[in-house]
């Protein structure tokens, strides 16, 4: 059965993998998205992920269910939110299937679709400023007072 969650703590990759490692599966594919040091030519100190958690969890689960139905496999996904240091995992997708092709495809589908559809946003904190990443755009974090315009 598909599993998906938005978590605040370090993702437990072995525990997640265990969910799709039943005796009927000959292949288990694990995708880990982790915090990279460079982004768009800037050095990254750390990342902060923000999620519209209830909606994000629903969307993640739907994606995992779609992958299970399409490739006849078992899928688990966890996305972490909050502050993450370099090399820490922000997202982990696991897929288990009888043969490897289905697990690879399901994994790829989940991570690609997640980026389009799951309401999660990343802020890159760099030595020279902080930036919201929105699609292809990096928007410098603004400190404007909220009462502006009211």
């Amino acid at each position: 059965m598909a599993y998906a969650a938005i978590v605040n703590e370090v993702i437990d990759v072995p525990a997640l993998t265990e969910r799709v490692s039943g005796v009927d599966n000959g292949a288990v594919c694990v995708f880990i998205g982790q915090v990279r040091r460079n982004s768009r030519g800037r050095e990254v100190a750390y990342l902060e992920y923000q999620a519209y958690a209830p909606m994000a969890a629903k969307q993640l689960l739907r994606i995992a269910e779609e992958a299970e139905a399409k490739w006849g496999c078992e899928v688990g996904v966890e996305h972490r939110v909050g502050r993450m240091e370099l090399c820490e995992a922000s997202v982990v997708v696991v897929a288990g299937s009888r043969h490897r092709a289905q697990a690879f495809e399901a994994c790829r589908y989940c991570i690609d679709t997640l980026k389009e559809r799951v309401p999660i946003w990343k802020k890159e904190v760099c030595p020279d400023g902080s930036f919201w990443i929105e699609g292809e755009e990096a928007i410098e974090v603004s400190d404007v007072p909220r009462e502006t315009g009211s």
Partner: protein
Amino acid sequence: MRVTVLCWGHLTDYFGSDGFEVELPEGATIQIAVTLLEQREPKAAGLTRRCRYALDEEYAPLETPLYDGCTVAILPPMSGG
């Protein structure tokens, strides 16, 4: 009617991340709520046009009618992963 508005991504710099309530006329749509936000913060005007929208945690188009007690979310382009 009272509607809760949630903003995300860079919009939280303008509107905060906790959400807030607005009073809207009966028959108002997501578009009306978005226009209200743009009036509140002119810097957000061009930006909300590239957003997607959700009503009660499900994607919904701008013309979706709202109802008392509902929650509208303004979702800028996403960057999960």
